[in-house]
């Protein structure tokens, strides 16, 4: 079983080479909820080995865009390629396989309460061919348990391995969610405000961990954030969403402070 998984991974990295270095690309994404047009034609891409910061005011559609990439929300129009595969054309089984190779960190950690932190991390392997053995840590193969424990250690939570997650603080839970994404050995991480509920120090550590992963393992990373300093420090590109489209896209060192301030002002506001 383990061999099969390893084979999957190598097969997938061959595929990636043949499709160039873009881990994920969006083209002309549109999405509205009822009469609320959230995305009206968003296009950009994120390469492996690189980090893209997604910024934008509350309700500008950052979470919606990230969800669309794995079809957790079905976009109305446009195309999305993950590892060179057109996500909207995949069968249910192929889609599950792609999803299992992408680490997704939600704005709200979305852990399974009543289960332990270790089990929640092991859930990272749930789409990777372990069948029922990835449901609970108690029945997981030792290899998974050891690797999951190491991931918890990496986010500083190995002492909490068997604690039910509802007893952890918000920031600790978010770190478990990040450990779960890292545990997947993903080729792409989509992180929706990964540091929002973390104190400045843990936020910095988590961002450093994510950057290290993009550099050492060649992962592509998109993270949304309201921390401009995180965007400036950890991203190779900054993509700014406003009124359903990309307001600007630039390298962090080209960003201008007054322009940024203008960006966050409500459109049409004279202030």
């Amino acid at each position, binding site marked *: 079983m383990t061999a099969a998984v390893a084979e999957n991974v190598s097969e997938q990295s061959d595929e990636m080479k043949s499709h160039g270095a873009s881990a994920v690309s969006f083209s002309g994404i549109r999405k509205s909820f009822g009469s609320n047009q959230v995305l009206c034609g968003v296009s950009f891409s994120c390469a492996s080995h690189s980090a893209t910061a997604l910024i934008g005011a509350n309700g500008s559609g950052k979470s919606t865009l990230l969800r669309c990439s794995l079809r957790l929300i079905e976009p109305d129009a446009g195309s999305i390629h993950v590892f060179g595969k057109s996500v909207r054309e995949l069968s249910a089984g192929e889609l599950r396989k792609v999803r299992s190779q992408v680490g997704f960190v939600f704005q709200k950690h979305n852990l399974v309460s009543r289960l332990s932190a270790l089990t929640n991390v092991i*859930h990272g392997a749930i789409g990777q061919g372990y069948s029922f053995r*990835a449901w609970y840590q108690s029945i997981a193969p030792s290899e998974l348990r050891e690797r999951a424990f190491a991931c918890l250690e990496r986010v500083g939570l190995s002492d909490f391995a068997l604690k039910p997650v509802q007893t952890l603080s918000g920031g600790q839970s978010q770190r478990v969610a990040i450990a779960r994404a890292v545990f997947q050995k993903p080729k792409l991480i989509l992180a929706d405000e990964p540091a929002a509920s973390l104190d400045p120090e843990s936020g910095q550590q988590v961002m450093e961990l994510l950057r290290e992963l993009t550099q050492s393992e060649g992962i592509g990373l998109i993270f949304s954030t309201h921390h401009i300093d995180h965007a400036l420090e950890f991203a190779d590109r900054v993509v700014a969403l406003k009124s359903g489209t990309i307001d600007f896209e630039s390298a962090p060192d080209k960003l201008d402070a007054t322009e940024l301030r203008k960006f966050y002002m409500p459109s049409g506001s004279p202030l």
Partner: protein
Amino acid sequence: MSELVALRALPPRFSTPSWKAVLGIAFLIALAIWAFAGAGISTEDFIDGLPEMWRLIGEMFPPDIARSESIAWSLVETFQMALAGTIIGVLLSFPLSALAARNTSPHWSLYQVARGLTALFRTIPDLVWALFFVATVGIGPFAGTLTIAVDTMGFCARFFAEGMEEADRGPEEALKALGSSKISIFFAYIFPVSLPSITNSSLFSLEKAVRSSVILGLVGAGGIGIELKVAMEMFRYDQACTIILCILILVIGVERVSSFARSRLLDQSSR
């Protein structure tokens, strides 16, 4: 300090009812009068019956414990029936409730069938089920066990399904994003999260089963009910009293144990 005086008129304590409300209340009163008319209520009969009731209760004491051994055995049989029936019912309720919960049911038509079946089990009274099983599998505790099982399914499948439907969508989305199948989502999330509510409903249904199993004997479906029926028909009210006391002990005992188990089970959780 000057006194506060409102500028506008104080609203009245009671508002005058609308003619719709008056009509509605009149209808409810008429309905109640009609019900009393049909219920054969007679003060005369009640007053005439009072000395009879007094005499009957007098004849119950002191309780006759001569047949206590055979009564004890049928009490044990009653409990065995209730327990076995509840276990079968709870086990069968799992698949039924998974089909009858909106968020776990694999298909709309299966959902409707499961809902309908559960409603059928629940709405037909247990004595009717008992008559049905006595007529089909014969007199004895097996008919009672089947009755309890069906009754438990009507109760548990409904409440299990409600517990499952209460599960938050967030973790479900997170598991979906990990490439999880519906089955894995069920076992790794929905099931553990609704376990407290499942435990609770199961213990309630055991209490309910014990209460209903004591009367199933009236129609020949095993248990202590038959002893009670015979004692009453032979005017052995002192024996009937012993039986009623035994039933009280059984029902109260099971309720006590069940609420103890509930408090112990519900606060341990991590897996």
